[in-house]
């Protein structure tokens, strides 16, 4: 199907089903229960982040996973995409289509320039060059190009770029919503479905982003299976052999860099389409680092890893930052008071504003015990499960070879 082989088709269908059914899957607990407050993730804002960061990391993986070139400045393209989209909202209309197209084009142009220079070096020097470029972009956006009193205020500095009522919006129609919309369909609108005490939210912005993520995912599968994808893996494996096999590695790595930059631009454009406000902090080096972390968490160089990594990161960030001392006390109330206070006192540093700490520890554990990321964890579990089954003998005759 779709020119994919059997296992890729299966993978794609599973991911598509999860994306389309996410409002159900992510809301397992009935509305209003304390578990729902904590663990339900089926609300628009978070679901949008899942798929948008999914796109970002899928693109990053085409560069880092295939060629091994570790860009430490990919957040720059995310930010560039965000600003481009808001400019389209300001100048044309709140329709997201021109915004998304421009965010990909501008990010593509920037990644062509930055990639061309950075790819003159490899290894750590490449990473540092991309980091330097990203920090330059951040500083330009934050101050130089963001001075509200100057005539070339492109980013509106600290305040962030947003749409004002006196913006030209040359193509705006009076009937369309004044928030980002797809031909009149407002991104922020949701329809709700109540079943018993459960409530499920279907948000327009989420579904548009989700479908774009599926397209992005499909393209990445095709790239992985193409001769081009094989050449990118060859770059990672042995550049010397490539050169002496008549292959010019430069355009291959540059193409991968630009493709992944455009993915990041699209993700940035989508962030602005969900909420038309772009700030420089999106380009900060910590944001670039988070992209690397998501890619490694999920499993570098695997197809599904980026989606898993982005989802895992966003989900736990969300939960951990919601937990506070009160909730901890509630959970541990079965313990004797002294012990309860002691444990809450320790856990205090790992939740709420301390979520970085927990996520950092999780990240370290994954790196140490699962160098192939969460995908490797899943594979190991599957293997264990299979072995158990065959040991039981119950299944040994009818399990297919693969």
């Amino acid at each position, binding site marked *: 199907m779709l020119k994919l082989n059997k296992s890729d088709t299966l993978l794609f269908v599973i991911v598509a089903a999860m994306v389309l059914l996410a409002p159900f899957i992510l809301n397992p607990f009935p509305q209003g229960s304390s578990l729902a407050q904590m663990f339900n993730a089926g609300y628009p804002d978070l679901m949008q982040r899942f798929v948008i960061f999914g796109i970002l990391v899928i693109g990053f993986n085409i560069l880092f996973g295939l060629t091994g070139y570790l860009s430490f400045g990919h957040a720059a393209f995310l930010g560039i995409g965000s600003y481009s989209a808001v400019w389209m909202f300001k100048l044309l209309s709140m329709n997201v289509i021109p915004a998304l197209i421009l965010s990909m084009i501008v990010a593509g142009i920037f990644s062509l320039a930055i990639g061309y220079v950075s790819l003159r070096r490899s290894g750590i020097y490449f990473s540092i060059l991309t980091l330097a470029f990203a920090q330059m972009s951040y500083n330009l956006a934050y101050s130089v190009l963001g001075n509200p009193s100057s005539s070339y205020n492109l980013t509106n500095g600290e305040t962030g770029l947003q749409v004002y009522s006196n913006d030209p919006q040359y193509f705006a129609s009076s009937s369309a919503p004044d928030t980002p919309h797809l031909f009149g369909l407002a991104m922020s609108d949701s329809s709700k479905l109540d079943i018993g005490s459960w409530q499920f939210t279907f948000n327009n912005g989420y579904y548009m982003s989700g479908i774009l993520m599926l397209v992005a995912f499909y393209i990445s599968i095709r790239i992985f299976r193409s001769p081009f*994808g*094989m050449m990118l893996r060859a770059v990672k*494996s042995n550049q010397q052999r490539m*050169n002496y096999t*008549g292959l010019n590695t430069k*355009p291959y790595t540059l193409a991968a860099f630009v493709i992944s930059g455009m993915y990041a631009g699209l993700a940035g454009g989508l962030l602005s389409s969900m909420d038309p406000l772009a700030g420089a902090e999106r380009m900060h080096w910590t944001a670039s680092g988070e992209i690397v972390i998501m890619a490694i968490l999920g499993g570098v160089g695997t197809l599904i890893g980026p989606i898993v990594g982005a989802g895992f990161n966003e989900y736990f960030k969300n939960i951990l930052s919601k937990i506070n001392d009160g909730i901890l006390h509630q959970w541990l109330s079965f313990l004797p008071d002294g012990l309860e206070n002691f444990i809450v006192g320790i856990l205090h540093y790992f939740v709420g504003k301390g979520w970085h700490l927990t996520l950092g520890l999780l990240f370290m554990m994954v790196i140490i015990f699962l160098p192939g990321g969460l995908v490797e964890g899943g594979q190991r579990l599957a293997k264990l499960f299979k072995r158990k089954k065959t040991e039981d003998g119950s299944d040994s005759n009818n399990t297919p070879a693969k």
Partner: protein
Amino acid sequence: MGILEVKNVGKRFGGLQALGDVNLSVAENSVHAIIGPNGAGKSTLLNCLVGKLIPDTGSVMFDGQSVLGRKPYEINQMGISRVFQTPEIFGDLSVLENMLIPCFAKRDGAFHLSAFKNMLADKEMVERAQHMLEEMNMAGKHAMNAAALSRGDKRRLEIGMCLSQEPRLLLLDEPTAGMARADTNNTIDLLKQISDERDITIAIIEHDMHVVFSLAERITVLAQGTPLVEDTPDNIKGHPKVREAYLGETQDAA
């Protein structure tokens, strides 16, 4: 005129004159060996032929065209393939993929953006790669990770990868270094077969006299960056200068 003409090539590393004044002519469809003691400049000479090093003086002509100033991938596309002293293959890729890459490089050139084609659906390329694997006696290992191959198999794979590009000149730098006798003999047979069956010129650097005298039609002896003599194997064996400079006690072994 040979297919490869090296004229007055010199190369200096700091204070060390690695190549003095090298003149070499390799005849088309011959097997030409370059021998010489350690540090004689053999690898340096080879590096000057494939674009890894640029000589300070002199010229290198391949089939009437200068190779100097060209990048390694451009020189390869002219028809020169190189086998390295330690096999250079794509360790993370499967054996079949290793063979596919040079096939694509030969057909599609140095860069080709085919991000939407399915690699394995390209019948022409897959058949060519599989055919080459069969010729190398490796068809059964096509799904293996190349890094997991034995050293002898890695060498065969690398030679096969070079051959799949149908080069006109194949350069080998000590292809049997560190190999067991059996593997060495296999490699000799393979190279013999290659030079018998194909229109190909082979230039080989080798320390093992057994290999050299089994394969070469002409031998150049290099010492301290300059060619001492160039002659047929029989004449080289008895040449006093060569015995003095290089062969020494290995003569009776040959």
